[in-house]
């Protein structure tokens, strides 16, 4: 579905990605784990077109997307939950969700999806007319995920959904992520620092270090890999 072929991404003169290649198959949950500054977020930003890789190729459904504008990429079916939630604090919950459906004109479909995300996160339905900034951290994360789902993506990119949340909320959110994958066959690309949790949800995983992919395997074998255990699981 998505294949990233040897991309090199720079911020000015600083090279963030030094040849990243990966494959995502339809219906999979893929996770990308790694330490701070390894280039996980940059990989996501490169896929969604917000940062343009200098060399290399990104293919989505057989089409080259690494020179396509971010809004085209969203309309092709890739939507991103950015790191740190980044909801719009002065817009209401409902307006935030409406922004997620910005490119869609099928009102009925939008309404169906709205009811779907409200069924996933009933708390958002209760708070629909409250402004986004008044939500708690967990609720904001739910809103950010829902907002991305409103674009009806085929590939959902999640950037550290566990960031700064209480363990109980994290667990809840990860269950929902699994549910989204199962119910809609939405492919999920999960970037996480919480490697233990991410690998339990994912089918396959990639390990990233200093802008390079150092390991890739099924989630199960990564969980039992000695190096991974030592470096990321703290066992």
């Amino acid at each position, binding site marked *: 579905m998505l294949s990233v072929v040897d991309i090199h991404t720079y911020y000015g003169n600083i090279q963030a990605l030094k040849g990243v290649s990966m494959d995502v198959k339809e219906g999979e949950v893929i996770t990308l784990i790694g330490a701070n500054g390894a280039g996980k977020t940059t990989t996501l930003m490169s896929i969604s077109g917000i940062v343009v890789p200098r060399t290399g190729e990104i293919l989505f459904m057989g089409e080259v997307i690494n020179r396509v504008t*971010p809004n085209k990429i969203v309309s092709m079916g890739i939507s991103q939950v950015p790191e740190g939630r980044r909801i719009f604090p002065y*817009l209401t919950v409902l*307006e935030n969700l409406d922004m997620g459906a*910005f490119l869609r004109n099928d009102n009925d479909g939008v309404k169906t999806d709205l*009811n779907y995300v409200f069924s996933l996160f009933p708390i958002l339905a209760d708070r629909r007319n409250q402004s986004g900034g008044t939500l708690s951290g967990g609720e904001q994360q739910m809103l950010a995920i829902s907002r991305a789902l409103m*674009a009806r993506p085929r590939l959902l990119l999640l950037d550290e959904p566990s960031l700064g949340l209480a363990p109980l909320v994290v667990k809840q959110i990860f269950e929902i992520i699994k549910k989204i994958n199962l119910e809609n066959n939405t492919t999920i690309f999960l970037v996480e620092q919480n490697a233990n949790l991410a690998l339990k949800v994912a089918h396959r995983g990639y390990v990233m270090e200093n802008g390079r992919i150092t390991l890739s395997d099924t989630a199960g074998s990564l969980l039992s890999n000695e190096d991974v255990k030592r470096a990321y699981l703290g066992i």
Partner: protein
Amino acid sequence: MIVEEIKKSFLTSLWFMFLTFPIMVIRVNTVDNIIQWRWANLLLVGIVSFGLSALWRYMIRRKELGIVQTEVDGIARETLSQRLLNERRFTLPALVVVSIFALSFPFIFSLYQTNIMITAMIYVMLGLGLNIVVGVAGLLDLGYAAFYCVGAYSYALLNYHFGLGFWTVLGLGGGFAAMFGIILGFPVLRLRGDYLAIVTLGFGEIIRLIMENWNEFSFGPSGIANIPRPGFFGIEMNLVQVTTYIYFLMIVLTLFTIFVVNRLQNSRIGRAWIALREDEVACQAMGIDKRKTKLMAFALGATWAGFAGVVFAAKTTFINPASFTLWESINILCVVVLGGMGSIVGVVVGAFILILLPEYLRFLSEFRILAFGAVLVITMVFRPGGIVETVRRTYEYKETAH
């Protein structure tokens, strides 16, 4: 506590007495070669500054108390204007009174008053246009008068060279201004905040300087005179009639502006502007085209300045570049900020206050601008959100069968 405050006010008044001593007390009479000591003035300065300082301290204290109260019980205090706007019993009669007043205005008051009102309404249009760019999309634009200039000159020049009428150019002027909005928009797409302000300021000056120096094109600083007033099916009108006509024309245009701007703000694109103001990366992740949305804000904001410029040229029948200086841009920005960023009612109120106040303060003669400045400072200290703080109408969810 109170003693402390009084002491501070007392010290302030002492300081003022000292500062104003050379100009208020000593007067050198050069005719008789004597020095007059006007001690009564010193006392006056002392009492007035003590009074004002005490009032200031009291008001600040009251405001802080209000904030503390909000923090304690978590209920945000609605301002008086917001309460009034939400009260149907108030808004309906107020609307009726305002419309009766507006409709009868040119028949009751003098030509001079009607002219001031027309100017005020032109500023309402300008303010609402700038409100899209500054208030909603959050792009600080200090060169807004440039679009006003483009509108005015497009009427003056198209009329001079091709004899085009007011109504034809009204549309064209708006279009030209929108085009210039896009021209300004392109280079500033990547800029934010201070940098954006500087570039837009430069843009405003460029347009004005071109108009001032390109004599063959714009007749330079001497401007263009004898611009025809708008016609009404070819009927001959005297000055009073034509002013009344422009007055009603402006009412219609202002209402049209309010209608369109209101629709825009509550549309998906309006929300996208707010979203873009808050978080650009998140907007991109949502598939909002940053470039298109920003350019649209610039273009749609500038259009109203174009309309206003055409009306301005038709009303004054004479324009020159001196009408479109940086001061003009700042004045329009003041309308938006003083009225309340993002609030349509606020901008309307702000425009009237900002245009009418200096006019009716004329009895203060040379202290006019000083008093005006004082009003601005006091408003911004006590009402930082503007006179009418924005109460955005939010997108309501309608519970329907699904």
